[in-house]
């Protein structure tokens, strides 16, 4: 498609909008810093981005709560307006765009056609497949059909949020809509999962920028999450970690330990098993994150976080059954039942042994009797 060569680079676009190179470097550097990248990476990213073409981005929302988008538009560095106006061409987002109805659908179809094979498809929300996809439909088309169609021409798919990445809340047991993560439906495209409920805004923009600046899918972990942001657990980087190491724990939300800012492990903190950048990037422009605000990590960026039992039972606590929490009563039931079966088996085996013994004894005394 010839007109692609006529398209200006991002650098040119920026200058047209009066954003100087230095200002752009400033923001990229700030972002790199926010993402805990090496200090000089920001400038390199800025240069790469300036030379790159401004990609088309299509943002589709399925079975979701819009929390992810809410999060995204609160991105501080770069702010979403920076991102949209300076770096990407957001060609479709039914929540943000002014157009609506058939006009909006047309805009999407046009963007898909014009940028076939080049656009970045951002998915927010899980994809319900039950009842032929009827649980989520846009303009008369089911989400699953829209996804399949949109995925065909995508250069890559970025799943924003735990719902599109791992199924999230709709996927949770008993999953009434038969919701699936994107990766269970599309298998022939590079997929990057930016999980979280919602994901940290800087992590969303950072992932997009990284992808755009390099044109490559970043290094991913086993759950296809960018290692740069999901390489460490919350626990690894938690400022309360020293208290964990000292064995100082808050036992309730209003005790001395909680007031002293001690570790929230016993209140159910999932930090040790949760990979995300909350402890370093934090939220609201680096203001705070849940643990800093006194609440244990829920583990929202991990698969099945909704089905891992109570948010408030310790990570090392046992859990079984539907409720996902074990009370001493449940333990007693299991232990008592097993003990009863054990006792029955014990009685049976002892009885068997005694029978064998009696048999032997009888035969011996009979012989003794014969002898005398």
């Amino acid at each position: 498609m010839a007109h692609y060569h006529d398209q200006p680079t991002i650098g040119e676009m920026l200058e047209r909008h009066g954003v100087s190179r230095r200002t752009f470097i400033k923001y990229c550097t700030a972002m790199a810093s926010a993402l805990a990248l090496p200090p000089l990476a920001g400038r390199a990213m800025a240069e790469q981005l300036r030379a790159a073409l401004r990609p088309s981005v299509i943002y589709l929302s399925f079975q979701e709560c819009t929390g992810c988008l809410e999060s995204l538009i609160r991105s501080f560095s770069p702010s979403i307006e920076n991102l949209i106006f300076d770096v990407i061409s957001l060609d479709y987002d039914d929540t943000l765009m002014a157009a609506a109805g058939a006009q909006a659908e047309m805009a999407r179809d046009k963007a898909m056609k014009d940028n076939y094979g080049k656009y970045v498809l951002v998915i927010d929300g899980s994809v319900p497949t039950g009842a032929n996809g009827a649980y989520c439909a846009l303009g008369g088309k089911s989400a699953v059909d829209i996804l399949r169609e949109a995925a065909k021409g995508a250069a890559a798919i970025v799943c924003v949020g735990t719902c599109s990445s791992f199924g999230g809340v709709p996927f949770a047991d008993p999953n009434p809509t038969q919701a699936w993560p994107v990766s269970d439906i599309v298998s022939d495209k590079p997929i990057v999962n930016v999980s979280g409920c919602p994901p940290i805004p800087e992590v969303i923009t950072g992932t997009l920028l990284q992808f755009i600046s390099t044109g490559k899918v970043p290094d991913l972990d086993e759950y296809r999450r960018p290692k740069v942001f999901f390489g460490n657990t919350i626990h690894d980087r938690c400022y309360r970690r020293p208290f964990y190491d000292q064995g100082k724990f808050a036992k309730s939300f209003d005790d001395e330990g909680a007031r002293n800012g001690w570790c929230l492990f016993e209140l159910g903190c999932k930090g040790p098993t949760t990979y995300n950048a909350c402890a370093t990037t934090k939220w609201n422009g680096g203001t705070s994150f849940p643990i800093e605000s006194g609440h244990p990590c829920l583990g929202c960026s991990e698969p099945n976080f909704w089905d891992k039992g109570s948010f408030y039972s310790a990570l090392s606590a046992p859990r079984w059954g539907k409720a996902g929490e074990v009370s001493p009563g449940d333990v007693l039931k299991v232990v008592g039942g097993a003990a009863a079966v054990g006792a029955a088996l014990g009685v049976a085996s002892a009885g068997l042994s005694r029978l064998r013994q009696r048999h032997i004894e009888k035969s011996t005394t009979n012989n003794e009797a014969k002898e005398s």
Partner: protein
Amino acid sequence: MSRLGEIPIRIVSRTPAASTGTIGAGVTAILIEIATQLDRLADGGEPGAIDLRSLPMSPGDREQLLKALGPGEVTITLKGDGESTINETGIQGVWWSEYRDRGGELIAGFIEIAQVPAILPVEPDQLRRGAQQLRAGAAGAAQQPGN
């Protein structure tokens, strides 16, 4: 409410002792790191940087660090999308950079070890574009009747 600082917060307990206790030694470590990077700059011309955000510092530590570096003689102000400052410290070649956004919030802070902060030099293509712009302007002025 436009600033976080304006939110009325009553601090009940101090910052956890564990996070302040270890930092004193941290300042020394930063100074040593700066010195190492200065050596590298002098030997191979390789600039370096330390992200202040990656170093958890108490206000006291920060003061201690600033005091150790001392005031310098160069101050640079960047006026793109908010006012950012780059101050040379008492140690020449060590720059204290603070990037702010339009609202004046600090969005990044660095200690840069460089001849000139890397954000300042202009790329050749930009120089050329500037030249072009000037030439176009001059041509336009020349064609202006009555001038």
